[in-house]
């Protein structure tokens, strides 16, 4: 194996042992003792993989991951942590880490995780992510959820909900894994996924725009808002933008009729919409510099009141 690794930890012992184990495996190892230093190093040098602790004085691991990912979304990251709480791991997973190593770890675990991470990086670098493959950490988290719910009656829907939170959508591979784990036939899992509108088998964008189709919104002209959003994002309802920033969905009723017409982007509600307000709201989530966005914005301003 060869490749470059940056180890980030505030404990020198951890850095030293990582260096010793990984150098023996043939990796080029560099180190940083904190988030700020790591960030400077990633800006100057490119590493195949960053191994980082989460709890560090100064800039913590989650912030570091966020900043690295902002500059280079493709950067492979593995988390080393002594406190693998569900919350922080979930948050890190959402930011797109590949895997995590719980502290304390044996040399075998570290080399194993590193090797798998490199395999994953090679599969993704220089092209689209291979279909039906997910980062090991994601699969591990999914398996943990399956184990947690396995013996509860009626667990299929909660597991699917959690799986959709973790993976973002429910492709056949994930459905099969859940079916196997819960000992339910894949056909039944699929029948549940296709029945409920909350589940999606298509990937979503970074931000999901849900437009309300309730009666009050209908009476107040939600249709023109949907048309404007479709134009601006250049997608249909159910679609995802070319830059994968937004997906557009409709929902039966958001139960916020007092604000009609209304839409929700991720978890934020936008009420009393006009075409212009709807387009402006999109701008809060992704920069308006892409061609289609700025064009949409201009035309909205031009036509606006």
């Amino acid at each position, binding site marked *: 194996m060869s490749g470059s690794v940056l180890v980030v930890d505030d404990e020198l012992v951890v850095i030293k042992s990582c260096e010793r184990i990984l150098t023996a495996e043939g990796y080029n190892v560099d180190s940083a003792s904190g988030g700020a230093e790591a960030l400077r190093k990633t800006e100057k040098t490119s590493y195949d993989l960053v191994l980082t602790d989460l709890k560090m004085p100064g800039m913590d691991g989650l912030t570091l991951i966020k900043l690295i990912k902002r500059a280079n979304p493709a950067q492979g990251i593995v988390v080393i942590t002594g406190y693998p709480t569900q919350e922080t791991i979930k948050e890190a997973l959402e930011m797109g880490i590949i895997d995590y190593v719980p502290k304390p770890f044996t040399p075998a675990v570290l080399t194993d995780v590193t090797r798998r991470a490199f395999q994953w990086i090679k599969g993704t670098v220089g092209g689209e992510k291979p279909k039906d493959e997910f980062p090991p950490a994601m699969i591990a988290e999914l398996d943990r959820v399956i184990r947690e719910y396995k013996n509860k009656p009626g667990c299929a*829907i909660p597991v699917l909900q959690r799986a959709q939170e973790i993976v973002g959508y429910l492709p056949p591979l994930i459905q099969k894994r859940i079916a196997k784990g819960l000992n339910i036939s894949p056909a039944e899992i699929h029948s549940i996924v296709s029945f409920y*509108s909350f589940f999606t088998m298509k990937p979503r964008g970074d931000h999901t725009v849900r437009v309300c189709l309730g*009666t*009050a*919104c209908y009476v107040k002209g939600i249709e*023109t808002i949907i048309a404007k959003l479709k134009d601006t994002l250049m997608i249909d309802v159910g679609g995802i933008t070319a830059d994968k920033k937004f997906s557009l969905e409709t929902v*039966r009723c958001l139960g916020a009729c007092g604000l009609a017409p209304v839409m929700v982007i991720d978890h934020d509600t936008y009420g009393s919409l006009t075409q212009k307000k709807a387009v402006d709201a999109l701008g809060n989530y992704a920069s308006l510099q892409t061609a289609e966005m700025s064009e949409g914005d201009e035309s909205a301003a031009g036509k606006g*009141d």
Partner: protein
Amino acid sequence: MRYKRDERYKRNERYNAINAMNNFRANIMLCAGTGCVASGATNVKSVLEDELKKKGLEDEIKVVLTGCNGYCAKGPVMSVYPDDIFYQSVTTEEIPKLVEEHFLKGRPYEKLMFKEPEKKSAVPLMKDIPFFKYQVLRVLRNKGLIDPEKIEEYIARDGYQAAAKALTQMTPEDVINVIKDSGIRGRGGAGFPTGMKWEFCSKVRSDVKFMLCNGDEGDPGAFMDRSVMEADPHAVIEGMIIGARAIGSHNGYIYVRAEYPLAVKRLQLAIDQCYEAGLLGKNIFDSGFDFDLEIYQGAGAFVCGEETALMRSIEGKRGMPRPRPPFPAHKGLWDKPSVLNNVETLAQIPLIIMNGADWYKSLGTEKSTGTKVFALTGAVNNIGLIEVPMGTPLKTIIFDIGGGIKKGRKFKAVQMGGPSGGCIPESLIDIPVTYEDVVKTGAIMGSGGMVVMDDNNCMVSTAKFFLEFTADESCGKCVPCRVGTRILLDMLIDITEGRGKESDIEPLEDLGRDIIAASLCGLGQTAPNPILTTIRYFKDEYESHIKDKWCKAGVCRSLCTFMIDEKTCTGCGACMRACPAKAITGEKKKPHNIMQEVCVRCRSCYETCKFNSIRILPASAREKVIW
């Protein structure tokens, strides 16, 4: 036509409703706002009640606590109805004289009578604002008053005392009898008496029973359950504890829509607090009664509001209804006896246990007791969540509380009951809102959504909107619903796109009735209601769509032409700026023109024009115009 307000008539009506069951000669409305309580209202109440008893008047005159009237500086204040006399600065010493003068001798006690202050404050009071004036809060009693994330605040408003009473001082039969006596009916839609539901289930012998709460609120246009779960989650939990005790259940689920993240968060927090305080779990209040409660998040399917479908969904399967019997009271969730109640129903259960059945019945009508929460939305001025006694006239709700129609437009209809309901036209606006009276119009009470429509709304496309909904949400299990709603929808689409035939209306009605008769569950049995009611009250609109190819509201794009009236157009250019298709031309200060071949009939100009100069004409008008 403008609706004329007759204050005295209205006021009497409300208090007649309050008096309907009790026949008290008079009511003393004593302010229990913070200000008046601080100046001694609590003492005044007990002294007043003692004095009434002493004089033998306790069966004739009732003391009712009210919200703050805004006269805190003169507190404690009270008013006497129906005499409509207002007293201020009432002290305990003055009460014997007041009771003697007013209630025995029948003349106002002038010493304490309200004196109009010389300088009137510019701040309006509750009684000056119809939106607040006609409301009576029971379900929404803690609305805006407590922090829903703190259990102490709920307890400070008498929270969990009803649960304590039900668990330690009452037998399950006692609880069921009080609820039955109160006459409360399920607030989810059909209005089945809650007490009877509980009684059926309590009589079934089983070790395992389930107490369920329906927070799926699928009706588009209704949001009271969301609001109650967000603003007062403990009230729902307390109602469930009492219900569980009544039917002998030790496990419960609250089924909440996944679209309501804030409600889920606050309910979960409330449940956690209850476990910590021993209000859920083992041996609650040392009564030996155990109850476990958890949240189950729905995954988005309207049909899951139906009780058998909801139970299938909790079992982790496709939420499809099944034929009844067996009823859920016998075979429900996992084939165990189960009771499913709506959020709004459960939130009032603690009040009924605390105050008794007679108190509950003192509002509302004989068959529809208590109050009802409505989500008032659409074309009214005051959009929001309101609570009024059952039997309040529809007119009061829309024109007084709702403040009438926006921009002074003309009221056309109010949609009640969501996709299962119907549209009530202006001619029926005087009906009192009760389960029975609403059903007579062809609509249903439903969960309480009221979407008000004005003359900008096309009734044919409104019916189409709801059919699109039901056709899409039909679970597909039974043929009449799955195929029937699709055919109805196709016929409506034809009509709104100009392909309607004169012979279409009758088959619509016939097929609608067949679907009602043959469908398996409530979804199919009510799906044609929006079509049937709109045909019943707005047949002329269907006819003008079919015969004249004319949608007078300008909603169905194939069936209208927008033109500018040259006589009234001032050439201000507002429509030109609003037009997204750039179809409007014309010089400043001269009448403008719409280029029909460019116009997309989006209504933007119509909405924008301040001079009412945009005319909506039949589709054929386009051809007659020569450009």
